[in-house]
């Protein structure tokens, strides 16, 4: 990330995979993919695949973690060993612990935790295939899974990555652009309320570019939000 290379990421006004600057990758969403979970979802952005499963609200153990006034939410982000080119050593590491935490902070403002004191909602995000923007794909899947599980929410959370490659501002970075680009930013928001719940950035950009990037991210999140709504409504189609 952020290191200079000779690699050309934009050739003749198009990105390496032939997309326009503000175009998302091919997106696929499914709900109810894990039978044993209260709610679950799968989201695919290009070749990044994330599965999220929600268990609960359920009784929280150990008991000292229980809050009398409100419930808590626990998020686990995990990458499968086979999800990357080489092999990822399995289990939690520094990176996945951080992402687990920011994913939790991105989802938390949306949930009515005060509706179930002393209980917990457990969210498991598994990355089956990684090709850039895994955290935002995971958050999108988790948001769908929470809605599918019947958890009371203020709004769905839509998330997307934006960045700067070869001097151009682009949406939805893939693995290559993530690694060799100049900057990348992950954003999660509640599009219905127009509120940001996550913003992380890496790299160097000007203030002007930053504002443009946030705007671009908000537009992309709205697109993803519409797709999320569509897939949830499709599950409960009458007839």
């Amino acid at each position: 990330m952020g290191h200079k290379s000779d690699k050309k990421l934009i050739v003749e006004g198009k990105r390496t995979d032939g997309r326009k600057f503000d175009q998302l990758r091919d997106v696929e969403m499914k709900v109810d993919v894990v039978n044993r979970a209260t709610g679950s979802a799968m989201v695919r952005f290009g070749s990044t695949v994330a599965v999220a499963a929600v268990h609960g609200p359920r009784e929280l153990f150990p008991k000292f973690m229980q809050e009398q006034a409100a419930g808590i939410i626990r998020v686990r982000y995990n990458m499968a060993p086979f999800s990357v080119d080489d092999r990822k050593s399995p289990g939690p590491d520094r990176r996945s612990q951080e992402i687990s935490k920011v994913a939790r902070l991105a989802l938390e403002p949306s949930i009515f935790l005060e509706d179930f004191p002393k209980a917990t909602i457990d969210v498991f995000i598994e990355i089956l295939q990684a090709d850039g923007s895994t955290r935002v794909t995971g958050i999108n899947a988790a948001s769908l899974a929470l809605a599918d599980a019947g958890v009371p929410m203020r709004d769905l959370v839509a998330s997307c990555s934006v960045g700067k490659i070869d001097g151009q501002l682009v949406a939805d970075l893939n693995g290559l652009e993530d690694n060799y680009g100049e900057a990348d930013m992950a954003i999660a928001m509640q599009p219905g309320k127009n509120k940001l719940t996550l913003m992380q950035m890496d790299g160097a950009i000007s203030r002007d570019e930053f504002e443009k990037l946030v705007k671009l991210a908000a537009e992309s999140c709205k697109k993803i939000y519409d797709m999320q709504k569509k897939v949830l409504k499709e599950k409960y189609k009458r007839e």
Partner: protein
Amino acid sequence: MDEETREREAREPSIEKEIKEVMKEYPDLAKEALKEVVLPGEFLGDKKGRKIGHGAYFEGEKVFSKYLGIPRIDEFEINVMPLSGVYIPETDDRIIGVINSVEVSGWFVDINSPYQAFLPVSEGVEEFVDQRTDISRFFDINDIINCKVSRVTKSKTVQVSMNDYSAKKLYGGVIIKVTPTKIPRIIGKGGSMIQTIKQATKCDIVVGQNGVIWIRGDIKAKAIEAILTIEKESHMLGLTEKIQKMLGEGV
């Protein structure tokens, strides 16, 4: 809504006909069936002094949905009935629980919820119980009881009671668990659906509002199949007919 109905009519006249038939019998049920599902955060309407009931929240004058569910909006109240989720106990719910542990002065009951319920001796048995009595002779671990939620505190400490006409210990049989929000559909309008299943399979069935259903009888497999079908297709139209057909063939 009108345009949508017309579109639907053009596409599938049979469904429209079916809706009309149902509408004659149960006008409010049919109105409900035609409603679209709403998603968390979806705008439901202005408050206009109405009561915000279950499944909705408001910001200023605007009311939004909390759940993925079916909206119920009238001139007095705004509600959303969720299509999935776990059971959160409320006072006066009639539920089925399984005794989890026997304590000195009562029992802990598993009520298919994030919270355990407590059944005190005074609420559990009518007769006088001496302090030295081992209360497991009334209810023991794994006994199934039909009881009523008598108290729920703000921090969700739940107390249940057997002081109710429907409360009793259930002997034998099996229990199955379904999504609690689908229970009204399993019972049907005025108990019609559950009566159909009971008559066709000759099983004893008790339905708890917490999503636990107790079944006893020789052909309980058929009853379970019917109930699980209702759970799976509860948001669809023409379900009663389908169940009748299904049970009619099997018995």
